[in-house]
C-alpha cells in the first residue's frame, strides 16, 4: 500500500506532465484543468503517505549491474518533504491557472512543473544515493528550464544558465559521494552509509563531509554560492514560489540533515556548517534590507532563512531545522505568491513605485501580513515556534557568539519584513493605475497557505515523533506540541529574541526620526546592493569557463584525418594500458 502511494505521488505528477504536454497548446483550459487535477492527486497521495511512514524500504527494484537498487524509504524526513513538495506544488499549479492565463507554451510550463514535483518527491523518498543524484539533476534541469521559461528574454536565459552552472557543482559533489559509498561499502544505500560511515578512513570521510557541505551550499544558495537565487527571480512567480522557496532549495538542507549522523564526527565540520549558515543569514538579511525589487528582496530573505536551517543542522538541531523548513516553505510560498499578484497588478517589481495598495487589494494585504508574521517570528504564526526552536538548539549546542549574531539577524528579519510590507501596502499610492484583488483561482492557494502558516506550529509534536520513530541513526528526542511550546515560552532566550524583534520593528516605525543615523551607512548599502562582490566573482568564473570551452572548440576541426588520429591514439593508449596493467 505504501509503495502504491509512493508510486501514485510520483507517477501522477509525471503522468500529468506527459498528458498536459501531449494535449497541446491549442487547448489551454484543458491544460490548466488537467495539470491541477494531477497535481492535486499527487498532493493527496503524499498526505496519505504521511500516515504510513516507516524506517524500512518499501520498494526495491534492482537496476542491474553496478547501478544498485532503486529503493524507496518512506521515513519521516522523506514523507514530510514529499508532502510539502506535492501540496505546495498543487497549490502553485492551481494558482498558475489564473496567473499564467493567456501565456504561450503552457504545455511546456506545466510539464516542467509536474516533472519537477515528481522528481523532488523521488529525491527525498529514495534510499539510494545514485537515484538521489539522478533526481537531483532532474530538479536542476527543471529549475533551469523554468527560470528561462520566457526564453526570448536574455535576462531570463542568463539567470537560468547561472542557476544551472552553480547547482551542477553540487550535483558533482553528490555523485562523487555516491560513488565513494559504492566503492567502500558495495552499495548505494543511504542506510548502509550512515551505519558504516565510522568505518571509512578519516580523510575519505572528511572529503565526503565537506563535499556534501559544498553541494548543499550550492543547492541552497548559501554563501558563497548565493548569487544564483536572486537572478533566478526571472522565472514566473508561481515557479519561484514552488522551486526557489518551498522545494528545490530545501534539497541542500535535506542533504545535510540526512547525512548529519555520518558527518558530525568529522572535526570542524559542524562549525563550518554553523559558520556558513550564520554568514548567509546575516549577509542575505542585510541585502534584503536594501533591495528595491520586491522579488529580489524575497529571494534574499529565502537565502537568509535557509541560512537559519543550515545553522540549525550544524548545531545539531535536525528536528528544529526541518520544522523551520516546513514553516518557511509555507510562509515563503505565501509571500511569493502574494508578491506575484501584486507585481501582476501593479505591472512593476520596484517597491518604490508601489505603495498604498492596501486599499485596493485588501485580501492580498491580509495574506501578506500573515506571511510577514511567519517571517518575523511573531507568536501566532508557525515561524515563531520554529525559529525559536532553531535558536534554542543553537544556544545549547552551538558556539555562543554565533547564537547572538543569529538573534540579531532575527531582528533584522523583522526589520526588512516590515519594510517590504509598508513599502508595498501602506502610505500613498505612488502610481495611479487601477488595481484589484485577484480571482478565486489565485485566492484559494493564498488562503490555504495563510491558514497553514497560522496553524502548522501545532504539528511540532507529531512531526518530532515521526522523525524519532523513523530515523534510527539520528538520535532524536520527540515531545508533544504543548511540551515544545512550553519549552520555548519558558526559555528566557525567547523573550530576548522577541525584544530584538520588537526593536527591529520599532526601528522601521520610527525611521523618519532616525534619518541622520540611516544616512551614514550609505556606501555599505550600495555595496550590499551590488551583492558584496560575489556577483562579480561569479561572472569572472563563468567567463573563465566559457573561455576554456571556446579554447577547447579548436580541437573540433571536423577533419576526418584528425578524428581517425584521435581514434588511433586512444587505441594506442588502450593497448599500452593493457600491456602494462593487463
Amino acid at each position, binding site marked *: 500500500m505504501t509503495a502504491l502511494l509512493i508510486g501514485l505521488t510520483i507517477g501522477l505528477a509525471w503522468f500529468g506532465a506527459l498528458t498536459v504536454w501531449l494535449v497541446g497548446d491549442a487547448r489551454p483550459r484543458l491544460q490548466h484543468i488537467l495539470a491541477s487535477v494531477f497535481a492535486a492527486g499527487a498532493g493527496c497521495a503524499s498526505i496519505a503517505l504521511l500516515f504510513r511512514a516507516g524506517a524500512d524500504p518499501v520498494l526495491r527494484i534492482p537496476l542491474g549491474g553496478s547501478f544498485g537498487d532503486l529503493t524507496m524509504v518512506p521515513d519521516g524526513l522523506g514523507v514530510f518533504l514529499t508532502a510539502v513538495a506535492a501540496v505546495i506544488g498543487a497549490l502553485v499549479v492551481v494558482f498558475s491557472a489564473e496567473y499564467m492565463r493567456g501565456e504561450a507554451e503552457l504545455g511546456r510550463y506545466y510539464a516542467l512543473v509536474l516533472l519537477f514535483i515528481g522528481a523532488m518527491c523521488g529525491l527525498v523518498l529514495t534510499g539510494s544515493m545514485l537515484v538521489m543524484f539522478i533526481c537531483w539533476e532532474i530538479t536542476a534541469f527543471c529549475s533551469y528550464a523554468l527560470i528561462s521559461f520566457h526564453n*526570448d528574454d536574455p535576462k531570463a536565459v542568463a539567470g537560468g544558465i547561472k542557476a544551472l552552472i552553480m547547482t551542477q557543482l553540487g550535483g558533482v559533489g553528490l555523485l562523487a559521494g555516491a560513488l565513494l559509498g559504492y566503492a567502500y561499502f558495495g552499495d548505494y544505500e543511504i542506510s548502509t552509509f550512515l551505519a558504516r560511515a565510522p568505518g571509512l578512513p578519516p580523510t575519505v570521510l572528511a572529503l565526503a563531509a565537506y563535499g556534501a557541505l559544498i553541494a548543499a551550499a550550492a543547492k541552497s544558495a548559501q554563501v558563497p554560492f548565493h548569487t544564483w537565487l536572486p537572478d533566478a527571480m526571472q522565472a*514566473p512567480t508561481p515557479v519561484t514560489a514552488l522551486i526557489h522557496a518551498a522545494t528545490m532549495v530545501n534539497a541542500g538542507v535535506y542533504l545535510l540533515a540526512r547525512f548529519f549522523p555520518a558527518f558530525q564526527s568529522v572535526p570542524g565540520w559542524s562549525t563550518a556548517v554553523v559558520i556558513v549558515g550564520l554568514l548567509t543569514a546575516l549577509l542575505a538579511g542585510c541585502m534584503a534590507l536594501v533591495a528595491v525589487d520586491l522579488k529580489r528582496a524575497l529571494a534574499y530573505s529565502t537565502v537568509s532563512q535557509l541560512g537559519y536551517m543550515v545553522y540549525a543542522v550544524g548545531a545539531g538541531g535536525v528536528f528544529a531545522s526541518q520544522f523551520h523548513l516546513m514553516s518557511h516553505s509555507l510562509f515563503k510560498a505565501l509571500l511569493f505568491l502574494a508578491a506575484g499578484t501584486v*507585481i501582476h497588478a501593479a505591472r512593476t517589481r520596484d517597491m518604490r513605485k508601489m505603495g498604498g495598495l492596501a486599499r485596493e487589494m485588501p485580501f492580498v494585504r491580509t495574506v501578506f501580513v500573515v506571511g510577514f508574521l511567519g517571517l518575523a517570528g511573531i507568536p501566532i504564526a508557525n515561524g515563531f515556534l520554529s525559529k525559536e526552536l532553531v535558536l534554542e538548539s543553537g544556544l545549547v549546542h552551538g558556539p555562543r557568539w554565533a547564537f547572538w549574531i543569529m538573534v540579531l539577524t532575527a531582528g533584522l528579519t523583522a526589520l526588512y519584513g516590515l519594510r517590504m510590507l509598508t513599502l508595498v501596502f501602506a502610505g500613498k499610492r505612488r502610481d495611479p493605475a487601477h488595481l484589484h484583488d485577484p480571482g478565486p483561482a489565485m485566492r484559494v492557494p493564498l488562503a490555504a497557505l495563510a491558514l497553514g502558516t497560522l496553524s502548522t506550529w501545532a504539528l511540532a509534536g507529531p512531526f518530532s515523533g515521526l522523525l524519532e520513530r523513523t530515523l534510527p541513526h539520528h538520535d532524536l528526542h520527540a515531545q508533544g506540541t504543548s511540551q515544545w511550546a512550553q519549552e520555548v515560552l519558558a526559555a528566557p532566550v525567547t523573550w530576548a529574541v522577541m525584544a530584538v524583534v520588537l526593536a527591529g520593528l520599532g526601528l522601521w516605525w520610527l525611521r523618519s526620526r532616525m534619518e541622520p543615523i540611516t544616512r551614514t551607512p550609505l556606501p555599505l548599502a550600495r555595496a550590499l546592493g551590488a551583492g558584496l562582490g560575489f556577483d562579480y566573482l561569479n561572472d569572472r568564473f563563468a567567463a573563465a569557463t566559457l573561455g576554456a570551452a571556446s579554447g577547447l572548440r579548436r580541437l573540433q576541426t571536423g577533419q576526418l*584525418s584528425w578524428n581517425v588520429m584521435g581514434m588511433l*591514439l586512444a587505441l594506442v593508449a588502450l593497448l599500452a594500458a593493457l600491456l602494462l596493467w593487463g
Partner: protein
Amino acid sequence: MTAVLVGAAILAAIMATRAARLLSSALWLAAVSALLSVLFFDLGAPQVAVIELSVGAGLVTVLFIFAINLAGEAGKPPAAVVPAWLAAGIAVLVPVLLAALAAFEAVATPAEPGPAFAEMLWQQRGLDVLVQIVLIFAGVLGLLGLLAEVEAPLGRSAVKEVVARREQDLLALESAARKEEVRV
C-alpha cells in the same frame, strides 16, 4: 613462399598509398588483392581465395576505376592535417603493441575434421548469409538513391505550404515585437 607473398602484398599496399595518381592506387590495390588471394589459397582456404580474387581484384577495382573516372582527380597541393611523421609513428606503434599483446607464436593446429565449406556457410552460418543478402540489397538501394539525378519538382500544394509558413513566421515576429510587458 608465404613470406615472399606477404612481403609483396605489403609493398603493394605501400605503393597504393603513395601513388601519385588515383588510378595507379586502384591498380596497386588490385595487386594486393591478387597476392592475398594466392596467399589464401596457400593457406588452404580456396573458397575465400576465389571470392577475394573476383571481388577484390575484379569488382572493387572496376568500381574504383568507374568512380575515379566520374569523380576525377583532386588538384590541391598536399598539406596534411596530421603531420606524416606522427601518422607513420602511430601506424608503426599500433601493430607493435598488438604484436606484444597477442600470442602470435602459437603453432598451427591441423584442421579438425569438420563440415565442408559449403555446408558450413549455408547451414551453420546461414544467418550470416541472410544478413549479407540484406546488406547487398541495402547497398544497392543506397547506390541507386545516391546516384539519383532527378530532383522532384515542388508540387503546387507544397509551394502553398511554404508560402503559408512564411506568412505565419512574419505574424509571429510582429506579435513578439508588440509584447513589451514586464516579465513577472
